[in-house]
């Protein structure tokens, strides 16, 4: 499987709902920290991604961030958040109500979020 999915929220083009979903997830992580020995989470609502990929053909952008880590029976685990967005060119589409910009070196990419998925896997 590569990892076990623990949460999934599809909130296309709506940062308000997306923000609510993220808050619920972080509340859940707080509870896990209280209940599970050795579990710690990153409570930065926008952690720095460690990987990103762009599908030029479909104009989609996927970013992955580590948002938590834990130890279970001596096995190191990590919690990964995967967010996908669609990209657009702002000069052609200037009235998208909610967007997010990414800085790829000198290039700025405008995107609108589609969904956020979190899964747990053995730490690599």
């Amino acid at each position: 499987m590569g990892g076990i999915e623990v949460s999934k929220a599809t909130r296309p083009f709506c940062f308000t709902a997306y923000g609510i979903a993220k808050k619920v997830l972080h509340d859940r992580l707080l509870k896990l920290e209280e209940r599970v020995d050795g579990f710690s989470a990153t409570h930065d609502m926008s952690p720095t991604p460690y990987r990103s990929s762009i599908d030029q053909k479909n104009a989609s952008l996927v970013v992955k961030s580590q948002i938590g880590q834990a130890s279970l029976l001596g096995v190191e685990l990590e919690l990964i958040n995967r967010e996908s967005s669609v990209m657009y060119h702002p000069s052609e589409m200037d009235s998208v109500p909610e967007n997010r910009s990414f800085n790829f070196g000198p290039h700025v990419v405008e995107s609108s979020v589609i969904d956020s998925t979190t899964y747990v896997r053995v730490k690599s």
Partner: protein
Amino acid sequence: MLKYIKVKSSCEHTIQQEVRTKRVPRFLDEQTKVTLEQALEMPLSMSHLPFDIDTLSPTPLDPYALTVYGGVDYALAARSYMIDKLHSNTISIGDTHRALIERAEQEILDQHFHRMQKNDEALRQWKEVAAERSSGKVLSHRDAEGVMQVRAGVAQP
């Protein structure tokens, strides 16, 4: 390095207070005795969709076996829900940004199908292992219920 540099949100969508039933469904009563192989094969039927119970519910481990509202396929219901959300959130820009919305729709459908396939494959492997190592041992009620809830995507961590 990739960095977030800006978040713009002028969203004026009305977020209605979502009414969620927090009660996790039960699939088996105390008297039902099942083996692991049976628990992996039993029909899954729910009165609510998993995301009606938990806003952040993961994709069910056994998505093709799950039915809701007495017969609707989870696969179809979840797809309709996500596409409806997309259209309601983009209603104000639908006329001018049709291509963008179509790309988003395709991305949602691709992810939905990909995750369902992945989970279905994982459960198939689990079933094969269970069949090979079959002991015929009856599971405790708690364990059997846990298997059913994981298959339905409503088990709590």
